[in-house]
């Protein structure tokens, strides 16, 4: 076997030029580097321009009134959209309340108990399909199941539609989280006499919690901006809702309604709402990152 030192000594000869990079490869390297940077720059442009547009158009209209007032009628001045802010938080909360238990339990089944059997593979396949389903279809589903059955548009119907969209993200991140817990840790729990239930609820799930929390916040961030599934489930409401079973305003539907309105005041409010929703999603995403930093494994 050749000693390593003799190999090294040949590359260390300072006056040796036979190992230099050829000019054509130097050029190629520079061109490729430039190309990659250009692609990065281009892919940042949409986000940057959206932020720029939303901030320049929305910041001017920002006032305490948007949090305290109701949407103005056509042609009126001022106003806010406190009911839409409440509605967005409410529908997202309902969506989370529905999808978290289903998503986490499904993930527990596929990772802890199904372990690659046909049911867990089916669940995984369905999750993939579900994550590709257009959001308007999720809305149609909630319309058929909740709106038609309960006899009207409501915050609950909106939340149900959003829960369908949140489910795949939650299942997937929860699965990842559960998989990140080493098998040895499960064996340790079982080895001192823990039941499956105790192992999952007291050892595995707590260790996977940062993952699950990240998934939930990302799912909420996605759902908070959805418009299509809310159009025919939560509908809209000019006023504050008095109950969960009433049609409710949401930020995204408010933007949709006001952006196509001919009245400048409403258009301005749409920009403000857009800014608010971007800030909301941004802060949720930052929160998700902070949570995911607390990973155990």
């Amino acid at each position, binding site marked *: 076997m050749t000693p390593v030192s003799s190999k090294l000594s040949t590359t260390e000869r300072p006056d040796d030029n036979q190992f230099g990079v050829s000019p054509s490869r130097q050029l190629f390297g520079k061109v490729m580097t430039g190309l990659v940077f250009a692609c990065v720059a281009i892919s940042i442009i949409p986000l940057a321009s959206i932020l720029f547009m939303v901030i320049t158009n929305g910041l001017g209209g920002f006032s305490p009134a948007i949090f305290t007032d109701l949407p103005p009628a056509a042609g009126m001045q001022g106003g806010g959209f406190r009911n839409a802010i409440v509605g967005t938080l409410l529908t997202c909360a309902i969506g989370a309340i529905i999808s978290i238990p289903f998503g986490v339990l499904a993930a527990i089944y596929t990772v802890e108990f199904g372990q690659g059997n046909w049911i867990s593979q089916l669940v995984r396949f369905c999750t993939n399909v579900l994550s590709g389903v257009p959001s308007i279809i999720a809305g149609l589903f909630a319309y058929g199941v909740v709106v038609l059955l309960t006899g009207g548009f409501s915050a609950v119907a909106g939340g149900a539609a959003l829960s369908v969209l949140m489910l795949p993200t939650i299942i997937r991140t929860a699965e990842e989280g559960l998989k990140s*817990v*080493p098998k*040895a*840790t499960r*064996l*340790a*729990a*079982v*080895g*001192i*006499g*823990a*039941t499956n239930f*105790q192992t999952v609820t*007291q*050892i595995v799930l*707590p*260790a996977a919690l940062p993952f699950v929390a990240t998934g939930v916040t990302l799912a909420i961030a996605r759902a908070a901006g959805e418009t299509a599934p809310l159009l025919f489930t939560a509908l809209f409401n000019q006023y504050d809702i008095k109950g969960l079973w009433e049609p409710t305003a949401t930020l995204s539907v408010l933007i949709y309604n006001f952006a196509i309105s001919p009245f400048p005041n409403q258009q301005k409010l749409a920009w403000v709402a857009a800014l608010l929703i971007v800030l909301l999603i941004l802060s949720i995403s930052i929160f998700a990152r902070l949570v995911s930093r607390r990973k*155990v*494994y």
Partner: protein
Amino acid sequence: MANTHTDREIVIKTDNVSIFYGAFQAVRNVFLDIPKNNVVSFIGPSGCGKSTLLRCYNRLNDLIPNAKVQGEITYRGTNLYDSKVDPVEVRRRIGMVFQQPNPFPKSIYDNVAFGLKIAGFTGNFDERVEQSLRKAALWEEVKDKLQQSGLSLSGGQQQRLCIARTIAVEPEVILMDEPCSALDPISTVQIENLIHELKDRFTIIIVTHNMQQAARVSDKTAFFNAEAGEGGSRFGYLVEYDDTRTIFGSPKEERTQEYISGRFG
């Protein structure tokens, strides 16, 4: 006159045990009795089925989907593989320490308290946690940081934490699956000293690759070997089981002699 090991109380009887993974036979026809308050070590080359057998003593191999045990393993007269036996209950009486230290991602205190909680312990937790950590020779090192994560400890400390966790629930038998193979020499000595002390209260079965370790810590030694059966698949079997002194001094079987003198394995 009864000699020293026949009048010993037998805790676990292994009666003609064979272990299968699907159609593959991993261990063949083992007869082996574990006396109370002894340290019994299992030695032998890789693939001889010593860990496999160890895992059968607290039904941990139940977790492997197609594992099957033939013959009888009795713990104090009860067949562990009887359909009426709850494996969870078995594991509370026969604890396990693994090859890789595997503390829970919880505080040092909770690592020890977890077993107590799930076993429905109602006494003084603080006291029992302290006792267990003392018995595992870890108390002095961790008494000021009980709320820190068990994962923040060094490898040797983690393994002692795992031992503390196991003895907290006061099992009768402790199974140790190569407990020192992931540790440095100093930690290994600490664990071996610990095993000596634990012997008064527990019966210990230890699988080890290290023959000196077996000679140092155990009262009795079982030597397993692997052999190719018909069809070429290898199975493990018990070659010789006797007092450690006899195994390392004057073994009866030629294979044992060859193995302990380092001629194969």
